[in-house]
């Protein structure tokens, strides 16, 4: 999953936000399904094969649970299947439940991809420009937290080997934990003194600090960004005109296939599978190069 994540953070952010917002707020089965399958495909590309089974075991039951919950609480719909405590359980409510499940799982997938692709440094880069101090502080915090955790682990092990933690009593455990934590506070202080020495030694505090980042806005970033904006524009247009309006209650409406609606579906479909397409294109390109070599 190199090709897509190499795009400029701004492009990635715009892309993810567009997909997430459309998927969350547009109640249309075609859009929902595109978002779901696009998200699943993207996730598969991002994750290791060993994780796949575990993920299936989580998302499939979750899907059914969400889908079933809706008809239990919503009784609208013209086609009752049976009555539960005097309230109808309807086909429409089931259909809507499935639609919600599609949306929820789809959004979860995209959020997963988002956190895998928009790493802390990309996020910092985007928001660091606005608040340079904050971005440095965040970067330092991200540096400090794992170090703190590691040191805490070391200290608690050292204490355990002196017979501090081995008591079974719960109160003793809390006491031991508190002692380690107090020790960690003085360690943090000590550590930060050295860090600040190292910062001062390298001229921190001089006037006119600049902000460096590895990211560059290449023409291809511009291209992808404009593609995203155009596709999003088409989608939003369809939503505003109501061409993609869809209802589950009380009667499931039919999909209207006006030219604009078709255009919206096509636009959102392309958008959902964009990372996949970019990846495939890149893979083919490599294959082609290798065969030429």
């Amino acid at each position, binding site marked *: 999953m190199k090709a897509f994540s190499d795009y400029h953070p701004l492009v990635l952010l715009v892309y993810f936000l567009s997909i997430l917002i459309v998927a969350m707020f547009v109640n249309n089965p075609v859009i929902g399904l595109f978002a779901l399958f696009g998200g699943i495909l993207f996730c598969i590309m991002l994750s290791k094969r060993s994780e796949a089974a575990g993920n299936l075991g989580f998302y499939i039951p979750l899907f059914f649970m969400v889908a079933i919950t809706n008809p239990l609480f919503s009784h609208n719909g013209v086609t009752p299947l049976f009555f539960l405590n005097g309230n109808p359980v309807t086909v429409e409510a089931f259909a809507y439940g499935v639609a919600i499940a599609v949306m929820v799982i789809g959004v979860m997938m995209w959020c997963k991809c988002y956190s895998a692709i928009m790493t802390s440094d990309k996020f910092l880069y985007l928001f660091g420009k606005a608040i340079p101090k904050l971005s440095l502080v965040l970067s330092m915090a991200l540096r400090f937290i794992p170090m703190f955790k*590691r040191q805490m682990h070391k200290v608690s092990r050292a204490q355990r080997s002196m017979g501090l933690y081995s008591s079974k009593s719960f109160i003793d455990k809390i006491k031991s934990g508190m002692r380690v934590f107090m020790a960690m506070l003085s*360690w943090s202080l000590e550590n930060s003194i050295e860090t600040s020495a190292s910062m001062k030694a390298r*001229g921190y505090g001089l*006037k006119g600090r600049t902000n*460096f980042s*590895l990211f560059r806005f290449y023409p291809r970033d511009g291209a992808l960004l404009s593609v995203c904006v155009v596709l999003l524009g088409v989608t939003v247009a369809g939503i505003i005109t109501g061409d993609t309006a869809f209802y589950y209650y009380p009667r499931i409406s039919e999909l209207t296939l006006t030219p604009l609606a078709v255009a919206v579906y096509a636009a959102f479909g392309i958008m959902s599978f964009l990372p996949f397409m970019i990846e495939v294109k890149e893979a083919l390109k490599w294959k082609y190069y290798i065969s030429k070599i």
Partner: protein
Amino acid sequence: MEILHIENLTFTYPKTKKPAIENIDLSINSGEFTVICGQSGCGKTTLLKLMKKELAPAGEKSGKIFYDGVLQEELPDKKSASEIGYVLQNPDSQIVTDKVWHELAFGLENLGIPTEVIRRRVGEMASYFGIQDWFRKKTDELSGGQKQLLNLASVMVMQPRILILDEPTSRLDPIAATDFISTLQKLNRELGLTVIIAEHRLEEVFPIADKAVVMDSGRIIASGAPREIGDKLSEINKEHPMFCGLPSAVRIYNALGIEDSCPLTVREGRAFLEKHFFNAAESEKAELTEIDKMTTEYEHSETAAIEMKNVWFRYEKDLPDILRGTSLKVYGGEIYCILGGNGAGKTTALNVISGLDKAYRGKIIINGKQIKDYKGNSLYRKLLALLPQEPQTVFIKDSVREDLADMLEILEIPKSEREKKIDEISKKLGITELLDKHPYDLSGGEQQKCAIAKILMSEPRILLLDEPTKGLDAFSKLTLRKLLRGLKQEGMTIIMVTHDVEFSGETADRCALFFDGEILSADIPERFFSENNFYTTAANRMARGLWKYALTCGQVVEKCQNSKGEAT
């Protein structure tokens, strides 16, 4: 050309009477490699910090420091920040940001350099230091050696003209330390960078230095070319304590007092010994019998204190085995030393013995009882204690005394007896004066002693030490050795894991090599090291052509003097 000039510098910390450094006169020429050595607490760090005005500690200062002909106080901030680079001791705490590339750029950002220039300079530096492979990694994922290299690179990227390093290798393992020092040498040779380094690890730094400065209690007692340092020290005192910190070749040369040029490296030392003692390669047979005698010479009880039988361990199910059928037997009252490369799993072995990690197969028997049969704290009460690699992690209170008292409280010793116990142990370890200090304010050696004091409170019979000599200067090592020997006299069984060939050669009863998850060979040091080509002491490498079993400088000198006696 003179780049740094220090004139009659005296510095006193607030609330102390005695100056930390006194009447220092020092002149450093551009392109020079200067090593500053001396016992911890001799004022090295204070001197180095004063050289960079951003780091100068608060206190009373007199005298003048000139950089590039300009008085330090008048030096523009930007020039001072970029041209005088400073690398500290702890690789971890110096790193400011979470990503390697960001860390490299940090100094340049502070100088207000535009992005495009930063990009070029960072790229250049990363390729020079071979960082490109981990350029985009998180700083937290790096090894200690990589971290220190990153610290060096992120200072070098600011294009300093002078580089000051305060014991940069003391937290590194030997291989990483050697790498680091050769990088320094490369910078000095290829870029003409002026280097000032405070170091304990003189074996490697001494030969490449242009100038050595020896400090003692805040004063410079000798300075000059490394070859002359030995002679200059001898003039002050034939058996100056500073000698034990110098490279083996220098020590042997000075102990013998032969008129010749002073050898610095193993190669030179070897040539020196062969030149003067070639005819002394006497009968090896006599020596062999000598060695046979040695086997029984060290004291230990006949029963095993610790036994590992075919122990297997891995951290997680999917990770590779770290211990693969490890077996070992340590007798009561012996000092057993496990040597081995980096990441070989020595520390893991120790953790498994100490019960911190549980083996998934095999038996660990401690004092004749399986480790799993020790319930609750019983293993850590009057039986076994582990000193972790970073002695700092042992302390959790604000003073050493409180820490010791705390330990006694845990051991449920009545209040009335605590004072007496603390007194006893601190006299024994010589830490009485340190009792009221904050543990973090102590030097490496002092921390070590206090940590040992704390773990000795539980009156263990078995002491496990993980890399006890890491970051210690020669004097502290000497004290540690005496301490361990003393504990052995009292019947303590000691297992230690170390990289330090010199230390284990001088201290251990038996040494063992840990490799590929197994203990390969265990033998008395004389036999263990004489079979190794690389993995042996510097003195042995120098003298092995003549006397195969001479391990320590003392032993080599003794042999030399004996053979001289015979020759004349």
